[in-house]
């Protein structure tokens, strides 16, 4: 049994979670704090990736970022290949998991007492500063919960990754894809072993994170 899919999966999920946070936190904040035309449409659209069957979503994504797609051609012109690389797996994991983070973080931000933010504002703090010193410290449990969900969803993504990254052993074959491949090849011993390793590593990782979260920020 090859350790590559495990390492790749953790690499992909970590990078994807960082990317999800970078995109999802501002989005969650805007949805929680600002009213704008189309607000409700955006709010609903965020969860659409959870509605579509993953392989179908992956296929649409492939049509866009593949060698013939608009984004694929644009990136190809810049010498960047996205489809069928580990970066495509990151994108797949991000799209599959961003809704979980945004919904959790939005609920967390909405639960923060606005008067505390107002108080900070009267003291001359910038919006950026208020977010980091008031909003986030008061809502970090929700954000943390969303992050853990997003990470786990990223770690387990199958359908989207299968379509946009392929299941190329040693290149883009993540843990879930490798386990599926073993099952398909009737190598149940390897499949069970890899599943066990996957579950145990994820469990240890999450326990570690949980411990970290109990520290005071």
């Amino acid at each position, binding site marked *: 049994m090859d350790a590559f899919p495990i390492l*790749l999966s*953790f690499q992909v999920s970590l990078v994807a979670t960082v990317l999800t946070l970078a995109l999802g936190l501002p989005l969650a904040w805007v949805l929680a704090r600002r009213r704008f035309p189309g607000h409700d449409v955006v709010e609903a659209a965020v969860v659409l990736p959870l509605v579509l069957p993953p392989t179908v979503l992956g296929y649409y994504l492939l049509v866009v970022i*593949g*060698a013939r797609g608009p984004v694929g051609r644009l990136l190809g012109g810049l010498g960047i290949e996205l489809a069928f690389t580990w970066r495509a797996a990151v994108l797949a994991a991000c799209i599959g998991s961003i809704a979980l983070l945004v919904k959790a973080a939005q609920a967390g931000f909405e639960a923060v007492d606005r008067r505390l933010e107002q108080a900070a504002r009267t003291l001359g703090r910038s919006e950026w500063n208020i977010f980091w010193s008031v909003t986030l410290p008061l809502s970090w449990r929700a954000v943390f919960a969303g992050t853990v969900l997003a990470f786990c969803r990223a770690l387990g993504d199958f359908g989207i990754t299968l*379509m946009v990254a*392929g299941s190329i052993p040693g*290149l883009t074959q993540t843990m879930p894809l490798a386990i599926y491949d073993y099952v398909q*090849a009737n190598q149940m011993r390897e499949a069970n072993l890899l599943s066990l390793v996957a579950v145990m590593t994820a469990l240890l990782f999450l326990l570690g994170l949980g411990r970290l979260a109990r520290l005071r920020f």
Partner: protein
Amino acid sequence: MVKAVLLCALSLVVSVVSPTVAQPKPPVLTVYGAADLTVAFREIAALFEKGTGTKVVLVLGSTGNLAKQIEHGAPADIFFAANASFVDDLQAKGATISETRQLYAQGRIVLAVPRDSKLPIQRLEDLRRPDVKRIAIANPEHAPYGRAAQEALQAAGVWDALKPRLVYGENIRHALQFIETGAVDAGIVALSVADTPAVRYVPIDPALHAPLNQIAAVVKRSTRPELALAFLQFVNGPEGRPIMKRYGFLLPGDF
């Protein structure tokens, strides 16, 4: 303090995982193949690797999915489909090299039951028995072996009667898993995957369905088409043929 711990953890993670980004060393041949080839191709690829020093990366899955990926630029060197239509479609879109298009095998289907099954099932007509509650086939909409199963059931005159009892697998291996786990009472799968400990099977007369011609072609974007062609010849050469036959494929020249 917490920030320092986080930073340490992050840098540790990065240093641990970054080597995995390294690409494998050439020459590497990436072979996209239909799910029914899973077992046979693992053996053949190992032999080819030993003989040529090439590393063969096998990407196996549903022919339809793989064809879509090749159409959109997947890094395949050669594509072994489970039928002809997907390769013809790719050819029409300019994704494969037309001169390399080749019939490499003919598939067969079998009637399979869980090994411990007590039901006396020998012929397609036996599936009408009322104690056969569920029957698995691959989805005839997109899986070539599923279509062949449907044709055989129609030719045997039992399709309409059995339709409410059918369970569709995503591909032929999925249909097999339904039988292996005993989730269904019987099923129709490819001979090439049926030889597993959990299953008993009897062959189905090939005259009952259109021939399952499996077609391969070298992918246009391949950087080593000559190596891809060499693999194609290897599959139908003195080393590949016995393995393909052992897994129940009929080979060009034999039919």
